[in-house]
Structure formats: structure tokens, C-alpha cells
């Protein structure tokens, strides 16, 4: 359905260093995110996960190192060609649908501006995407008339509208009431099964265990440990990983 499971690297982060003043948030961080695979990034709060996502999506510049998207080196959004930004979509923790547009308009806007679709085409695409996330009957609702879970599902559809090859999720369910988390994770699982490449920052360990192909544990701006979910969850090498998992599980279940 999507780019397909294929060989090769979608996002290659190499030795990236990012400082805010004297605070070193990413410290020669390196990690590869494969095409069509789902990688879950976990780690304590303040470990630089959001900064990593923002550097990849071009919302933040970095001081050293390189980030390669699908073989092409990218700097910040300003120097990044439009076609490049389209290949990686991002879903944020904070609900940020545009409040002055309906769900349908939120989704149809970017394809009209960036892909040059006419209104009819863009609306049809948006309707199809709304159906994919199970919200076909909410097309004409404004964001304030949607629950948090519904807003995140529309945000996913909005990102999908440009046919990205990879999606980056930064704690997509952290701002939601617990009973709304499931519906968003369900849409994400479905995308993953259909071969969408995903980088998911989350504290939802159940999701990481069941859906991901790889789990990356980061702390203090570097990868501490990475591997298949069974390995990380059942037999983590580092004591630190173990401690983090124990604490997180206790907090969430």
C-alpha cells in the first residue's frame, strides 16, 4: 500500500549534535530508521526525543553531523526543497489542527497548495483519508467539535495527504485522555501493517511491543540500547534500560 517494505534507510541520523546554549541535547547522536519499518523511540523526559524528531523534520537546526532522508542530505526546512519535506510527515503531541478550517479542509489544504490539486481532487482525497481513519462522518466538523482522539486521527490523515514515505510521531497520545488513546494507536497499527515507515516516540509500551520492528532507548542525547522489541523488553542488556522500563510500566499499568 505504501512505499513498501524495502531495503535501505529512510532516515539516517549521523553524529548529530544539538545544543541549546550550553545544554547539549543531542550528543553525536546516530541512528538509522529503515524504510517501511516502524521504529519506536523511548527514553526519559528531557532526553532529547522531541529535539531529534524536530531536527529530522526540519523544525530545528543542528550544530554538527548530518541527517539524510532517502539518500538526500537535508539541513533545515528553509533550505529544504518542498518535495523533500513532503516525504516525511510529522504528527505532534499538541493538538494542532487549524481551528478555522473543517476536518476536510485541514486535510485538503496542503495537497492543493503543494501538489497543485484542484479543489474537487483534493476534497476527494481528503474524504478517502477521513474514511481510512474512520471519520468520514466528521468531514465538516471544526476541530473544536472533535474529541482529542479524533483530532489526532485527522492530523494523521492531514500528514498522509501528501503521500509521505515516512511518518514521525512525537508522543501522539500523550495529550489525550486515557480512553481516547486506543483509537489513535489503532490507526497507527493499521498504517504500520500496511507498510508505512514510522518513527514513533511514545510511552505506550504495549504498542511498542506489538507493532514495532525496532525499539531505540535513548537517554542524555545518545542511543543507549537498540534492538528488536522482544530483546529490549525481555532481555535488555543495560541496567539502565531495565530500570527505565520498570518505572514506565509501573506508571502506565
Amino acid at each position, binding site marked *: 500500500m505504501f512505499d513498501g517494505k524495502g531495503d535501505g534507510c529512510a532516515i539516517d541520523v549521523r553524529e548529530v549534535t544539538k545544543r541549546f546554549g550550553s545544554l547539549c541535547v543531542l550528543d553525536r547522536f546516530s541512528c538509522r530508521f529503515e524504510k517501511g519499518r516502524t521504529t519506536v523511540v523511548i527514553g526519559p523526559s528531557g532526553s532529547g526525543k522531541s529535539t531529534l524528531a524536530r531536527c529530522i*523534520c526540519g523544525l530545528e537546526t543542528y550544530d554538527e553531523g548530518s541527517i539524510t532522508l532517502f539518500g538526500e542530505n537535508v539541513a533545515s526546512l528553509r533550505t529544504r526543497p518542498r518535495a523533500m519535506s513532503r516525504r516525511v510527515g510529522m504528527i505532534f503531541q499538541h493538538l*494542532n489542527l*487549524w481551528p478555522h478550517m473543517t476536518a476536510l479542509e485541514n486535510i485538503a489544504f496542503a495537497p492543493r497548495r503543494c501538489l497543485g490539486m484542484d479543489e474537487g481532487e483534493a476534497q476527494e482525497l481528503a474524504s478517502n483519508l477521513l474514511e481510512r481513519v474512520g471519520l468520514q462522518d466528521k468531514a465538516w466538523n471544526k476541530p473544536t467539535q472533535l474529541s482529542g482522539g479524533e483530532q489526532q486521527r485527522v492530523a494523521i490523515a492531514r500528514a498522509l495527504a501528501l503521500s509521505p514515505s515516512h511518518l514521525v510521531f512525537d508522543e501522539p497520545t500523550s495529550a489525550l485522555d486515557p480512553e481516547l488513546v486506543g483509537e489513535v494507536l489503532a490507526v497507527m497499527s493499521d498504517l504500520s501493517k500496511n507498510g508505512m515507515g514510522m518513527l514513533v516516540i511514545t510511552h505506550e509500551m504495549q504498542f511498542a511491543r506489538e507493532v514495532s520492528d525496532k525499539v531505540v532507548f535513548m537517554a542524555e542525547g545518545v542511543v543507549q540500547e537498540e534492538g528488536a522489541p522482544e530483546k529490549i523488553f525481555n532481555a535488555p542488556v543495560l541496567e539502565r534500560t531495565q530500570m527505565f522500563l520498570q518505572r514506565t510500566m509501573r506508571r502506565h499499568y
Partner: protein
Amino acid sequence: MEFRTDIIVANAGAIAEGVLITLLVTSFSFLVALVLGAVVGILRRRRGVLSRLLGGYVSFFRGTPLLIQLFLIYYGLPSIGLSMPRYVAAVLSLALNSAAYISEILRGALGAVPKGQEEAAQVLGLTRMETLVFIVFPQALRVALPALVNSFSSILKDSSLVSVLSIIELTRIGQLIYTRTYRAFEIYLTVALIYYVLTETVACFSRRIERALEI
């Protein structure tokens, strides 16, 4: 003392013309102020020399009386070779004065739009201009609308001052009728009521738009 409504009735035509001129001067000034205020408001979001210069303009026009600004522009500027017709001077003064306030209103409203709104647009590959025009501005305008309408009403009332440049607007008409009839109470009460009805109409109109735009 009797209330001479007949004076008002006899001068209704002239009064109507005065209202028309007041509305024209106000509308032109407001449009210019809106454009100017938007440009200044946007440019002042970033730090820099330009931003500080514009800050100087804003604080000067907010910190000095409009009447003096009017004199400075109409009587003062010709000394440095910049003379202009009365109407231009009137509109320019009102617009420069109001734009100083409007730029602050818009700057505040632009700042009130959460950063995430822009970022969502940027990661979809929208340009800075598209983001500003289609995402940030519509939301800022909603926030700013009541204050902008207020600015319009302020210009409407302040335009009374341009009568000192012998522009035949509502206030000037009132003065002219007064010098012929000496019926200050009837005339100035009527003039005041007309201003009041105009500003109330605008306010009522704005409340309607606000309700229609409610998200």
C-alpha cells in the same frame, strides 16, 4: 428655552454631506492604517534595527497628541519640501496615528497564535508566506477583530479634529451652522448623536461578524 428642531431640519442636507465626508475620511484612513499597521506589526515580530526603528515610530505616534501630528504634517512638512492637499494630510495623519495602535494590536494577535499552528504548516512544506497568509493571519484576525473595530470607531471620532484644516466634515458643518444660528445646544447635541449612532452601528456590526466567525 425651546428646542429648535427646525434649525436641524433646515440644515439636514448640509449635515448629510458632512456625514458623508466624515465616513469617507474615516474609511480611507482606516484602510491605509490597516495595511500599514499589518506591515509594521509583522515586521516588528523579529528583532533588529528595522524593528527598533518602527518601534520608535509606534511610540512617537502613540505618545503625542493627534492634533499636533496633524499640524506637523500639514503645516510643518512643507518646510522640508513636503506639502500636500488638506485631505491627504488629514487622511495621512489619521492613518499614521491609527496604524501605530493597529500594529500593536496585530502584533499581539499574531503572537497569540500558538507556534504549533505554524509548525504544522511548515512540516507539510508550505512556504512562510503561505503559512502567514492562510494559517496564522486568519486566526490572528479573529482575535484582533474587536480591537480593530474599536480602532475604526476611534478614527471616526478623531476625524472630528481634521475640521481644523477646514475640511467640511460633520464637526465643521456643525460649527458653520452654529456661526449662523448661535444655537449651540441643538447643533452639537445633534452632531454628537450622529457620531454616537455611527459608532454604535459599527460596534453592532462587529458583534455580528464575531458571532458568525465563532469557531
